[in-house]
């Protein structure tokens, strides 16, 4: 319905719809679809049995669990604390606020390998933080989680921040005068407004974490069945010149990621609708 309405919309107020749509489709095809379909095509060189073997061996299954589990957990943690950070940055004034604001973007810019090496050093058993922790972080699945939290932070903060800036303070004041408790104001007034943005931020952080290689590889320890992420297994296959096997795993990851992101996106649309179409 939505699609057909969009395609049939001929007389828009803005000119150049056809051209823009054509360009957008071409651009997405060239940049995203063509390389991805190359990956799909490569898997067609395998028999179905070989494909199934490649993507369901116990080691690969263990890596899906770690990759998707740790990515989900990291994105969830970032959704909670990213919201807090965004809230603080928007609502409060304090010294060095601009500096802190700029720091949020650092994980975007830092080469991931640098992040990985730094995190490994800090969380190793002789590291600044690692020596005080009762459990091991570097070279365990916990390390993977820590790295993914690090790279995901800016996605949540940067998507939620502008929405929070637009939230009308009068709404909160109105809620307060009407006798709402602080919790009610937060859960019934503010959260519904930021929820779509928060879900977007979550989805971005989650998607980024799924594909992350550079930083994780240093901190994970890469123990088979325990702390191997799926991208590592893809590289492992490539090292054995098993290009078809590598793309097979990549395709499975791609499909699962796509389905999950689609799900999160429709959740977000639902949240936006419920809120009354902002």
């Amino acid at each position, binding site marked *: 319905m939505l699609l057909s309405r969009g395609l049939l919309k001929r007389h828009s107020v803005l000119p150049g719809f056809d051209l823009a749509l054509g360009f957008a489709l071409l651009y997405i095809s060239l940049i995203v679809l063509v390389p991805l379909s190359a990956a799909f095509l490569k898997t067609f060189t395998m028999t179905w049995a070989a494909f199934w073997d490649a993507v369901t061996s116990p080691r690969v299954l263990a890596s899906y669990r770690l990759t998707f589990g740790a990515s989900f957990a990291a994105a969830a943690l970032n959704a909670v604390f990213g919201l807090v950070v965004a809230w603080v940055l928007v609502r409060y004034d304090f010294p060095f606020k601009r500096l802190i604001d700029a720091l949020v973007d650092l994980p975007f810019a830092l080469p991931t390998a640098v992040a990985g090496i730094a995190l490994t050093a800090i969380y190793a*058993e002789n590291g600044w933080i690692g020596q005080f922790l009762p459990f091991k972080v570097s*070279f365990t699945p916990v390390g993977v989680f820590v790295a993914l939290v690090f790279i995901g932070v800016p996605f949540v903060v940067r998507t939620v921040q502008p929405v929070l800036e637009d939230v009308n303070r009068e709404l909160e004041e109105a809620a307060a005068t009407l006798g709402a408790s602080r919790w009610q104001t937060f859960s019934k007034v503010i959260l519904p407004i930021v929820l779509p943005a928060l879900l977007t931020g979550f989805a971005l952080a989650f998607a980024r974490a799924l594909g992350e290689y550079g930083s994780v590889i240093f901190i994970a320890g890469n123990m088979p069945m325990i702390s191997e992420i799926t991208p590592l297994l893809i590289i*492992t296959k*490539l090292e*054995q010149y098993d290009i078809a096997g590598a793309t097979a795993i990549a395709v499975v990851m791609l499909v699962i990621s796509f389905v999950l992101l689609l799900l999160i996106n429709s959740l977000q649309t639902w949240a936006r609708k419920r809120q009354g179409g902002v």
Partner: protein
Amino acid sequence: MERPNTSRTRRALLLSALLGAGLPTLALAQSVTLLNVSYDVSREFYKDYNKAFLAQWKQGGGGELVINQSHGGSSKQIRSVIDGLAADVVTMNQALDIDMLALRAGMVPADWAKRFPDNAAPTTSVTVLLVRKGNPKAIRDWADVARPGVSVVIPNPKLTGNGRYSYVAAYGAVLKAGGTPAQARERVQQIFANVPVFDGGGRAATTTFVQRNIGDALATFESEVDLIREEFGDVFDVVYPTWTVLAENPVAVVDKVVDKKGTRKQAEAYLKWLWSPEAQEIAAQHGLRPRNAQVLARHAKTFPKVNAFTVDEVFGGWLKAQKEHFDDGALYDQILAANRR
């Protein structure tokens, strides 16, 4: 003679004018460019080697020559060459990678290793063990890192040549000492049960051992030892196992590329000079064992005599070793699976 030359110059001028100053090599239309695609840690050696080679090349009237380098993980580099990176020569640290170039793309003949002396490997190294200063765990041989309670850092054999050589060294050492394949398997199984971290690269494993202070020993190439010492100080001892593997660093001219570019003469001369005493000396200074006996004798202190076997001798070549030990589901995967039980 006059005409084609001037027209070529004019064309070059036109081209460089069109493309701007961004591609300075174009201005030297007559100069020949060679691309040496190599593995990661050979950067420093080839920097010095290229300088020395070019000096003698020009002295001998070889004409203008520019040598470009590309470094990276070895199998990634070979994949790039297969996919079209125009390498005139490849210089690797494992024959398997060049075998792949022959097998997958036919870019070098299958008998590439016979086209130069010494298995086409001008330099070698051996896999050694680094232990903590003073050797507190008394590690003298592969058997010692197989003991329970000892931990040894080995880079991931699935990802790194360094890791594969370490595995092969430990396995072959048992066979060389008269053991059976079953005993060899048990030995590597015990050793890999003692590996706390599987780093994705040789240098990353070094960092884990030296800086993270993880493991009682680190398996790595002898050629890395000086570099590690320069970087981190004299915080470890080097242990030469009774038997270890000779890591050969093979080189090959990429036929398909040089025939197209017309650079065969230069490419062959470039690789051949690796065996010259001067080049062997440069290699020795970079921690690579020279093939030249006199140069080796001069550096006897750096390169003590070791009992080293080749992969060809014990495993029947890298292709076979890869298939029987490192492919998915092969012996290495089996011992890891057995260790988890």
